[in-house]
C-alpha cells in the first residue's frame, strides 16, 4: 500500500510522510509530553538528520501500514488510557489524511515526566 497508480503515473506515500502525521497527532494527544527515540543509535541518527518524526517508526508490511510510537507520559495520568487514546488519535488522523487503513499501532511508553510532585 501507500502506492496508487493513476492514468498519469504513480503516487507513492513515503513512510516518513505518514510518520510526520502520526508525530503531530501524538503530540496533540492528552497526557503525552514528548516522544522518545527507539534507542540511542536511532536517537543520534534522527537528531543528526533532523528527522521531523522522532520516536515514530512507520513500516509497510505488504499491504498493511504498521506504526510504532515511543512516548513519554505525564506522571500522574492513567498511562493505559493515555496510550490507548494515542493509538485512537493517530489511527484517526492517519486514516483521515491518507484514506488508507492502518493495520497496527504499537504504543511504547518509554518514560514518564514528573512536572510536579504531590
Amino acid at each position, binding site marked *: 500500500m501507500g502506492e496508487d497508480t493513476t492514468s498519469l503515473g504513480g503516487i507513492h506515500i513515503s513512510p516518513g510522510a505518514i510518520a510526520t502525521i502520526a508525530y503531530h497527532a501524538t503530540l*496533540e494527544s492528552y497526557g503525552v*509530553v514528548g516522544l522518545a527515540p527507539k534507542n540511542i543509535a536511532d536517537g543520534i541518527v534522527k537528531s543528526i538528520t533532523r528527522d521531523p518524526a522522532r520516536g515514530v517508526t512507520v513500516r509497510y508490511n505488504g499491504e498493511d501500514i504498521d506504526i510504532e510510537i515511543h512516548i513519554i507520559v*505525564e506522571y500522574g495520568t492513567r498511562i493505559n*488510557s493515555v496510550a490507548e487514546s494515542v493509538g485512537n488519535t493517530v489511527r484517526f488522523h492517519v486514516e483521515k489524511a491518507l484514506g488508507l487503513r492502518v493495520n497496527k499501532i504499537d504504543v511504547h511508553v518509554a518514560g514518564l515526566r514528573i512536572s510536579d510532585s*504531590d
Partner: protein
Amino acid sequence: MAVNTARVQKLRKRQIDGQSLKRLVEAGMTWLRTNQQIVNALNVFPVPDGDTGTNMSLTLTAAYNEIKDSGEKHLGKMANLVAKGALMGARGNSGVILSQLWRGFARAVQDHETLDAETLVKAFAESRDTAYKGVVRPVEGTILTVSKGIASGTEAGLASAAKRDAIDILEIAVKSADESVKQTPELLPVLKQAGVVDSGGKGLFFILEGMLRHVYGEALDTPLISVHALSAMNFENAMQEVEEGQDYEVVVDFFPQGEFDLAKFYGRLEEMGTSIQVGEGDGMYRMHIHVPLEKRYEPIDYVMELGTITKVAMENLLAQMDDISKSTQQQPIKFNAVEPNQIGVVVVSPGAGLSRIFASLGVAAVVAGGQTMNPSTQDILAAFENLPTDKIIILPNNKNIVMAANQAKDVTVKQVAVVPSRTVPQGLAAMLALQPDGEVDAVAEKMTKALSAVKTGEITVATRTVEIDGVSVKDGQVIALLDGKLVVSAGSVEEGCLGFLDKASAMEHEIITLFYGQDMQRNEANRIADIVRAKYPKQEVEVQEGGQPHYQFIISVE
C-alpha cells in the same frame, strides 16, 4: 425548577468540609450521568474519543466510589481521595483530563479543612494549570479551554465584589463554563463544521451545574432534554402507550438552520403533545410526537420555521392500535405455499427472526435447530412428509446438521437434494438462487454454487480457555468465527464484530448484515451497527432480528 432560597441561605452559613465535597461530587456525577446522552451525542467523529459522556461519567463514578464510604471531614484529604479515584478510573481522553483537573484541585486544597471563596478560586486555577501541563500542544476549543474559562471567570468574579462566598464562586464557575462551552466552536473549526460544541467541555459544565443544582435543591435525575442516535429511536414502543386524545403520530425529519436550541425545541413540543423523542444523525434531526387530531399540523409548521424539512410522516394511532390488537404479537410466520410439482425448500433455522427472514425468501417449512440443539433425522423427515410436493431441497445451515439431513434424504421416498449450507448466511445466499419450477438436482447445484458468495461471521462467547489456529482465547472472552474458523478473540462484542469484518476484508464487499441473537437488545445491536457503519461508510450495513441463541451476532458479508 425552583431554587430553594431557604436552603441556599442555610448552606451559605455552613462550612464546606470533606463531607460537603462528597455530596457535591455525588451531585456532579448524578447530573452528568443523567445528561450523558446529550454529551455523547456531541461527538464530531466516532474516534478518537468515541463516547465522551460515558467516559467522563465512568471516571467520576470511580472517583465517587473511592469516597462514598469515607467519613473524612478534612476537605483536603477528601479531595485527595477524589483525585486518586479519578486517576485510577480514568477512561478515555476526556476521563484522563478530568482526573488531572481533580488532581490540581486536590493539590490546591490539600491543607484546607474547609472551602472558602479564595481557596475555590485558587483550586480552579490549579486545576487548569495541572491539566495544561499534561499535553505538549494543547488543542483549544476543548475541555482544556473550558477549564481555563472557569479559572479566569472565577478569578475576575472574586475580584469584582468585596464579599463573595464559595457558593457565589460556584455560580460564577457554572456561568463561565457555559460561556466557554459556547465559545468552543469558534476555536475548533471541526466543531463548527459539525455544528456542535465540545463534548468534554459540556461534560465538565454538567458536573459543575450538578453541584450547583444540589446547592439549589433542584432535581438531578430528570434530564432537561434527551437526544438519541437516530437508530436508537424506538417508535414501536412509543406507540403502545397512546394517551387519551393523542390520536396522531407525527414524525418529521429536518435539517435545522442556524442555531438550534434543543431546550427551547423541547419546550415548544411539550406544549403540543406527548411521547416526544428527538434523534440526531449526521446533522439530520428526527422528531417524534403524539398530538391530538386538531393539532396535527402544528409540529410540522413549527419545525418549518427552524430549518429544512426532508420528510414528514403522519399516522392515525387509533387505527394503528386496532391493527396491532388484531394481529397481536405472535404473528405466525407465513410460509410459501408450494404447488405439488414445485420445489419446496426446508431450512433448519436457529431463531424466530431468522425463520421469518427465510419465510420471506420463499421457504416452505422450517425445522428449529442449530448449534447445540441439532434436530433429529425424524424432525427433518416430518417436515419433508408434511409438504404437498415430492421435490424438496433442504438447507441444514449448520455443519453438524448436514449429516442428519443426508440421513433423512435416504429414508424418505420423496426426491430430496441436500444443499450443504454450513451457516445461516450461506442458507440465505442459497435461497436467492432458488427456482421453484426447475429440476431438483439442477437447482440444488445452482444453490450450492451460491454458498460461496457470502462470508459468514459468528460472534459468541468462549466457554473455555483454548488456543486454536494461532488465536488464543480465554474463557468468557468474545470470539469471532469466519466461516467456522476461529479468527479473533476480543474483549467486547463490538470489538469482535470489527475484528471479524477486518478479517473478512469487508472493505472489498458491498453488504454487511448483522443478525442479532436472543441475548441482544435491539438498541445495543443498533449501537454496534452504528459503529460498523462509521468504520465501513461505503458498505451497506443492515440489522435484522435473528433470535438465535448463543451467538450474539451472525454476520453475513457479501
